[in-house]
């Protein structure tokens, strides 16, 4: 099956959101408040109006909290070309009233999250009596992990065109949910959704960012200000980096109790991270069902006493969903902790992982959770938590990667397995840690059980890409804030993995299932196991355990 736009894409004819051209169109770039909830205090636009090509300056009011997908407000420069608008924006003199988030600082916030997981939190899942089991354990292993905010950084920065004639609106925007965008634009304009047509051109990447249509609303509001004249809002890369809907930041704490024979008898996992819900409703400080179900309360380990507790976390940025969402931090921390325990117990990490997963069976968290369990929107009967399938991908990835083989000094294999989007994935990373901690990855083996596999080539390509996205977030990924504003700006300080650092050989092993095993997700599940498999490989190669992401210069 060929991709419809394949030839157009390779010949430059394909039209993306940034490429939409409408006759008579004006170009706009917007200076948005650097801090969430901020607004313009003073504005002097006289120099900007003198920039050749600049036609108008429009002040947009910020959406009040909860922000939902509303625009951030700011000052729009409308011009005859993108470049004139960019130059005009540079010439604006604005002072901002930063509001209550103006003192937000990622370092101090990290300390808050870490304090939250050191004390009892809201119980999210409970099996047996974890306190008693920990108190009477022969040995307790404790560890903490920290994973920062991430950003989608879609290759195409957001952009949208809107125009109105005779009361009918047309909007061209690269949005992941055109129907939702239409409703949100209608609400912002105060008109009926039926008066708007939203046409999505191709999306230059989405990963969750483009399900939020703030940029399309901006275009509509500016076009209305110009009486319906077509306006294209262009986000620069700096705009994209600084005004995103960020993947949450997470502190995780584990306490595992072992009996005298080194069998795990207690498992307490606390997690604190600002919730996506805070973008939509006031006062939300704990995860909701979707976040809980993303590889956390469904942890399928064969342990008699289990408790998950969430700590309180106040948001200071717009929290959004990013490819595989909360699975990123949960899979990374859980699978790192498993390997960390194995090392302390002198066991092989793959064998110990299988021991924790336990025998092939169906795990049913539904009666053990305090919030009704979310199974990716699927019925439990059709898509149960099947440890047999998790074991199978673990064993398959290990076998294909030659698990247990002797490697030279400074090299190592690491393994991780995770169920997400009702699909089972295990990854083995082979890492070489060279001079000054330079990481290279000669080979990755990923086994995926996505039920009946509809389109094997696309499954492969999703897993190939997910490995690199996993590597990027492990190696470089972090958005940090100082005085409430995002510190990163472009690909120079929010680095993405390039071809020369990406795994040289990515092997994808698809479990062959009959049609009777229903198909499941493939776009997201490849991401979560990569970072822990890499960190476990780094431990095998160097003895250094990565406790916080990104790896950055920790190996130098």
């Amino acid at each position: 099956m060929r991709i419809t736009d394949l030839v157009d894409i390779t010949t430059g004819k394909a039209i993306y959101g940034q490429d939409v051209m409408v006759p008579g169109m004006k170009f706009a770039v917007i200076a948005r408040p650097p801090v969430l909830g901020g607004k313009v205090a003073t504005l002097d636009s006289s120099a900007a109006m003198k920039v050749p090509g600049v036609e108008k300056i429009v002040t947009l009011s910020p959406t009040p909290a909860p922000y939902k997908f509303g625009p951030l407000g700011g000052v729009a420069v409308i011009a005859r070309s993108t470049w004139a608008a960019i130059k005009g924006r540079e010439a604006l003199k604005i002072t901002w009233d930063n509001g209550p988030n103006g003192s937000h600082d990622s370092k101090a916030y990290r300390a808050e999250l870490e304090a939250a997981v050191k004390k009892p939190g809201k119980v999210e899942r409970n099996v047996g009596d974890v306190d008693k089991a920990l108190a009477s354990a022969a040995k307790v292993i404790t560890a903490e992990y920290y994973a920062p905010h991430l950003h989608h950084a879609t290759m195409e920065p957001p952009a949208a065109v809107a125009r109105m004639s005779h009361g009918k609106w047309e909007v061209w925007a690269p949005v992941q949910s055109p129907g939702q965008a239409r409703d949100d634009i209608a609400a912002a304009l105060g008109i009926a959704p039926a008066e708007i047509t939203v046409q999505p051109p191709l999306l230059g990447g989405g990963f969750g960012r483009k399900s939020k249509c703030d940029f399309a609303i901006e275009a509509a509001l500016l076009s209305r200000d110009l009486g319906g004249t077509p306006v294209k809002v262009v986000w620069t890369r700096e705009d994209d980096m600084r005004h995103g809907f960020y993947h949450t930041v997470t502190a995780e704490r584990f306490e595992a109790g072992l009996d005298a024979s080194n069998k795990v008898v207690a498992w307490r996992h606390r997690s604190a991270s600002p919730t996506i819900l805070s973008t939509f409703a006031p006062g939300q400080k704990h995860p909701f069902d979707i976040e809980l179900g993303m590889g956390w309360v469904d942890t399928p380990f064969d342990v008699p006493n289990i408790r998950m507790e969430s700590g309180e976390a106040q948001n200071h940025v717009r929290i959004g969903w990013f490819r595989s969402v909360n699975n990123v931090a949960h899979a990374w921390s859980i699978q790192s902790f498993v390997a960390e325990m194995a090392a302390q117990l002198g066991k092989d990490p793959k064998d110990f992982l299988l021991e924790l997963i336990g025998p092939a069976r169906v795990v049913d968290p539904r009666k053990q959770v305090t919030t009704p369990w979310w199974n990716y929107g699927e019925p439990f009967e059709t898509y149960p938590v099947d440890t047999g399938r998790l074991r199978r991908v673990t064993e398959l990835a290990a076998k294909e990667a030659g698990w247990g083989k002797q490697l030279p000094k400074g090299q190592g294999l690491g393994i991780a397995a995770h169920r997400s989007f009702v699909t089972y994935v295990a990854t083995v990373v082979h890492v070489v840690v060279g001079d000054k901690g330079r990481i290279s990855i000669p080979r990755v083996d990923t086994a995926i059980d996505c039920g009946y596999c509809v389109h094997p080539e696309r499954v492969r390509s999703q897993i190939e890409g997910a490995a690199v996205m996993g590597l990027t977030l492990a190696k470089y990924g972090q958005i940090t804030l100082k005085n409430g504003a995002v510190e990163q700006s472009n690909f120079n300080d929010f680095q993405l993995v390039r071809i020369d650092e990406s795994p040289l050989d990515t092997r994808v092993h698809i479990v062959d299932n009959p049609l009777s095993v229903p198909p499941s997700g493939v776009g997201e599940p490849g991401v979560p196991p990569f970072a822990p498999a890499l960190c476990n490989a780094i431990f095998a190669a160097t003895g250094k355990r990565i406790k916080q992401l990104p790896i950055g210069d920790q190996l130098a």
Partner: protein
Amino acid sequence: MAISIKVNGVRHSVDVDGDTPLLWVLRDALGLTGTKFGCGIAQCGACTVFLNGKPLRSCAFPIAALGDGEVTTIEGVNGRTARAVQRAWTARDVPQCGYCQSGQVMSAIALLSEVRRPTDRDIDLAMNGNICRCAAYVRIRAAIKDAARTLEG
């Protein structure tokens, strides 16, 4: 100010400031949107064009510096190497979202015009200025090797 430029063999007169990056002249003034905007600071390669046959990041190149230089964009590339690359790209299903691919194709054509049988190292060096957020790197590498074989045969 009126500036005369030659793009894909055609001469145009454009009314823009001299500091306008070539990228925005191509996209906004000439409507050649195959050349993409990704970063604006010569970091991602999405805006790669040829200037006198050599790859150039058009986002960081002011139009005033162009002089008599001849620009070729993804819409204007042709010839045996370009065809081999574009065919290899479709045969390997390289693109995911596709947004970076104009730039990838341009850089791959440039590489194969210089090096007929590139090694992995050659590919790394020639292609590491082109970011792909979807990370189609496995297929990009394979397609370059396929195209090289076609060009030999």
